[in-house]
């Protein structure tokens, strides 16, 4: 099951080059950065390396589709988009246990964030 940032179950047009979540920054190649679609594999939801890798890819200027693939739970949906992913892909077994509604209702449970907007809201003129 594919879910994009808008909550729509529409897969990317292009197939993804899959990346292991343990990929080091120095191992990111030009080919990867030019690919239309990358997918970072999450071997376990407790392994948060994919969030850092996504952030680093975007920082290096990656503009293509970026999918968080594998073992994720709905409670990580927001974090995925903040890291720079634009879609989550989970397998059928996981999707039957955690269907689309759970993913959508897990979003935006926290209206603001300390890392994103609270300091600005407090101080912006």
């Amino acid at each position, binding site marked *: 099951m594919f879910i994009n940032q808008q909550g729509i179950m529409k897969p990317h047009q292009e197939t993804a080059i899959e990346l292991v979540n343990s990929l*080091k*920054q120095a191992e990111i190649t030009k080919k990867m950065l030019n690919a239309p679609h990358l997918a970072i594999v999450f071997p376990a*939801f*407790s*392994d*948060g*390396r994919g*969030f*850092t*890798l996504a*952030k680093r890819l975007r*920082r290096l200027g990656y503009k293509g589709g970026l999918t968080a693939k594998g073992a994720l*739970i709905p*409670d*990580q949906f*927001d*974090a995925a988009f*903040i*890291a720079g992913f634009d879609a989550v892909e989970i397998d059928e077994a996981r999707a039957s*246990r*955690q269907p689309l509604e*759970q993913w959508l*209702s*897990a979003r935006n*449970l*926290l*209206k*603001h*964030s*300390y*890392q*994103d907007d*609270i*300091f*600005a*809201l*407090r*101080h*912006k003129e």
Partner: protein
Amino acid sequence: MYSYDQFDKQMVRERVTQFRDQVSRRLTGALTEEEFRPLRLMNGVYLQLHAYMLRAAIPYGTLNSTQMNQLAHIADKFDKGYGHFTTRQNIQYNWVQLKDMGDILDLLADVEMHAIQTSGNCIRNVTADHFAGVAHDEVEDPRITAEFLRQWSTFHPEFSFLPRKFKIAVTGAKADRAVIMAHDIGLQLVKHNGEIGYKVIVGGGLGRTPMIGQVVREFLPKNELLPFTEAVMRVYNAEGRRDNKYKARIKILVHETGIGEITRLIEEEYAALDKKAYVYDSQEFARIATYFALPPLENLPQKAFTTKNPALKRFVEVNSFPHKQAGYIALTISLKPQGGIPGDATAEQMRVVAGLAKTYSHDEIRVSHNQNLILPHVKLDDVEAIYEVLEKHGLATANINLITDIIACPGMDYCSLATARSIPIAQSISNQFSKKQEADIGELNINISGCINACGHHHVAHIGILGLEKSGQESYQITLGGDSSENAAIGKLLGPGLAAEQLPSFIERLVGIYKGEKQGNERFLDTYKRVGAAPFKKAYDNVH
């Protein structure tokens, strides 16, 4: 102390809603226990031997009477009428039920408290010197930094699924009363050419492989704290080991990679990261700082404390800490009564302390990592009245930093990780020494851990006791020479394991050896450092 604004309040409320939803998804099976586990841990909910345990956060160990009264209320309503103050300045309830967690978290939110990230592989409670704001030797109140980091680290989207837990501690003085050298990140506020910044230490930790932290930055300008911390966290998140739970802390990464290379990785990441997100940091820091100004203290003459009551005199001598304002002290309330359970307080005792704080300490209480409570702003003139109240409630033990001021983890009586009981050991040692003997011995820190996870911090105690299991029996190892101050040191194993019954007299023998070797005003630790372990090994002679 810090007071929530609308954003802080909204955050803790939304978190409770989120947690209630997580609990219901667990009950339907939508979340497996394995998936639920880190989510409940990030709300401080542990599954222990007898029941669930809730660890509520007391950020940098500071709270007011309203909050302490609520903690007492929770103890009465949802626990067995008591709570346990921990070595990281939090409070634990050992007898709560999962079905009540949402209600308890709501009660905490009602008084601007929470149990967020007190467990789990995320950034934990940022601890600080329990004499912050009071101590003469402070460059700046470390709690401003701690609150700043608390907010930044709360629900951090990138750093909530780390290889392992992450603990940060801050000291405002060179004297380290926050054990920063044994934390994943230790921060010391320093002044360079009139500018305040941080000495940043990384890779300390206790547990199974105790290590003292190492400096990655001698001076970090204050307004660079959050982006620099982000760099450290990113390197750890990406590079920390995930193959072995016992090798997953940043201390292992530093040890295996080398401090030079780790520093290079951090500085490289720091140079590359986007600092735009931090443009409001200075303003936010200044906003938080306004909450930590000294309360309106009176201008009193400097004077010595005098009384005709010898017990009260002793109490003040032993339990007071000098306050930067003349005529005031910070007063420690010992939660180590003779033969008692270290760090435990009944709901009634919590209420008593709350009342005293409101009347005599500008409504402020501190929790120390030594598992004691502190009234930080007490007039010497009020000490007698306070003492009278404390005495009535078993809170007047005059033993701070003495041999019966023992730090102990909950141990096998409560904890599913433990290999031995720790509480009965603390009790038996506490009962071994009379007040007179205790006074004679002077400063001596004994810490007891009920397993190699070392939650009792025994590695940095003058005498550390580690409870293991050997052939089905509890066996206690002794380490000597640990130091949790800025002269941080890991204690060294003295000899073979001992049975529980042998410990009190063994400790007595160690004390006897110290007294025999002591020169001048040396503390136990000083004598040990001077003469080494050899004389103390004689304590094993004739052990039966």
